[in-house]
């Protein structure tokens, strides 16, 4: 997978230089780098390793440990379907099946047109509105399978 590091290099360098001085800079830098590029491919991880003076293996070990980090590009809209306890017992697996069917992808995948990526997440603290789905930063609460298509149509 090749990517264009130069797209955001000045901003990336700023982030690295700003965080470097503090202890434990790696995770904050990865967060911000993923924010910039959308994902953390090898080239980016290697660049961060070099910039922070930490081993590449450490960066890779951290990226693969935390579920928030991804090495694959994601869709424009990230669907986060909560499978926390409340959402689970209130039937969010049915919504997942429907979403998967509508989008033609499995959880953890993106649609070929990169419009959506479908992700299952742990409790997002919306238990009282279960079952809940987030698309980007907006919350859809008490979702029923029949509403899924309608929700999807709201995002371009």
């Amino acid at each position: 997978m090749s990517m264009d590091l130069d797209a955001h290099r000045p901003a990336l360098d700023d982030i690295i230089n700003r965080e470097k001085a503090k202890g434990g800079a790696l995770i904050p830098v990865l967060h911000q780098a993923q924010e910039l590029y959308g994902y953390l491919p090898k080239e980016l991880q290697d660049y961060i390793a070099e910039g922070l003076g930490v081993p590449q293996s450490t960066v890779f070990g951290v990226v693969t440990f935390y579920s928030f980090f991804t090495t694959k590009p994601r869709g424009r809209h990230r669907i986060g379907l909560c499978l926390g306890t409340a959402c689970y017992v209130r039937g969010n697996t049915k919504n997942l099946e429907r979403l998967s069917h509508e989008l033609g992808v499995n959880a953890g995948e993106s649609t070929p047109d990169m419009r959506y990526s479908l992700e299952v997440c742990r409790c997002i603290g919306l238990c009282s509105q279960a079952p809940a789905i987030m698309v980007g930063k907006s919350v859809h609460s008490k979702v029923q399978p029949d509403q899924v298509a309608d929700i999807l149509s709201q995002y371009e």
Partner: protein
Amino acid sequence: MTIEELERIRTEARQILAERGERFLPDGELKPPRPGEVRVVLRNCGQIDPKRIEEYIAKEGYFALHKILNMTPEQVIDETKRSGLRGRGGAGFPAGQKWFFARQALASRPAPADGAPPAYLICNGDEGDPGAFMDRAVLEGDPHSVLEGMAIAAYAMGATQGYVYVRAEYPVAVEHLQTALPQARRLGLLGKNIFGKGFDFDVDIRIGAGAFVCGEETALIDSIEGRRGEPRPRPPFPAVSGLWGRPTSVNNVETLANVPQIFLKGADWFAGMGTEKSKGTKTFAIAGKVKNAGLIEVPMGITMREIIYDIGGGILNKKEFKAAQTGGPLGGCLPAKYLDTPIDFESLVAAGSLMGSGGLIVLDENDCMVDVARFFMDFTQDESCGKCPPCWLGTKRLLEILTRITRAEGTEKDLETLEYLTQNISTASLCALGQGSVNPVVTTMRHFRDEYEAHVRDKFCSSGVCKGMFHYEILADTCNGCGACRLKCPDKVIKGAKKAVHEIDQANCIVCGDCYKACKFAAIAIRPRPTPKSKLPECG
């Protein structure tokens, strides 16, 4: 900042608050206190604008900090001990004791040569229990109460640098903290020489990256240091060797949010609430099959019945209460016989569960306890850091067995193996995640053994959850032929004339459950499948 200035800000801000009146969170999560609730931690949530420090000051904010800076750190620790405040993160360790240990460790060690902070105070906001969101509510709704609590704790233990570790899933909490920090610094409530008393303390935010195990304090410390969050054996405890090897206290959001109130109203006031060993209030996130889901705060010692029925309004859709799951993935499922048990740290542990951070999920007759155990095991297995075999391999084996049972492939031997696994995982695992991971299995096996046995022997899931292990039947003597089920059936496999008993064409039924939900007269029942799967060859 001086006390006079603080008082001036309070006066001005009270004016504004009085003019505006009380307001509540827009999304309906935090409703006004219901009868039976006592709000200490949630006192300001929804009542003040969390992005304006003045409004927090209007509610006596930072007065406790000023007060304790006239006390010695030892006095602050003693007062906290006297209040009986215990950690709200799960284990319930006395907060004052934690600070005491850190302070002791600090005294026995030279300060770092390079001028780095001698000790750290970490606010654990990695609220990972599915079903718990009180920390989010506090961080979003009243961030300054946490910062003030941190400053007091830091003063007591000797820390000069603090970190708030927040889940990445809580962007609003992060945003509100990011707003709060510069405000507090600008007023001199964080930073150098706070209130002119020679106390330095500042706070930085660290955002988690999606790892439940980082709620464990040693893993959280590793994560702040920029590594994989993998728990370490204790000792050494963080109080002795924590962040960057220095004395560190890790306290939960809710614990810290209690602290300013304890110093404003006194240890006696706090100790006056709750039970003998569990003082104060506790927030609970009630969810699941309950009418009034949401966040509540109640005195310790209240019963589950009071919470679920009096405050929560009882079970949804007139269903039967089956169990309450408390304590998240490391907690357990308690059946109806515990409804009248007072909720405190010890009672929950005695019942095989855990206070945890206060998640309380109500389960009804349509929740399969084997599937619930499987659900939690799927969670902990996925969240295991992979360091110690009892956890990374043990939980995997547990999950595999539970999955087999819920797929009608379980055997009697599997039940034995489950018990063997749970016993040993709990004694042999490195951290609380591994040790506690078995609790959902242990409690469901203890209290709902019959369901496990039905799954294994009869290949029957009486809750109608496990696919292929039940079917629906229309009860001839209850069906009044209203036709609701027939209309709802997506595959049109229900036959029956109006006002006549209906029947399901079992051969073509996909067991979707729409008819079951549609029937208002409890005329559709969950029954074992006519050809039990037990005739299939068993494995193992």
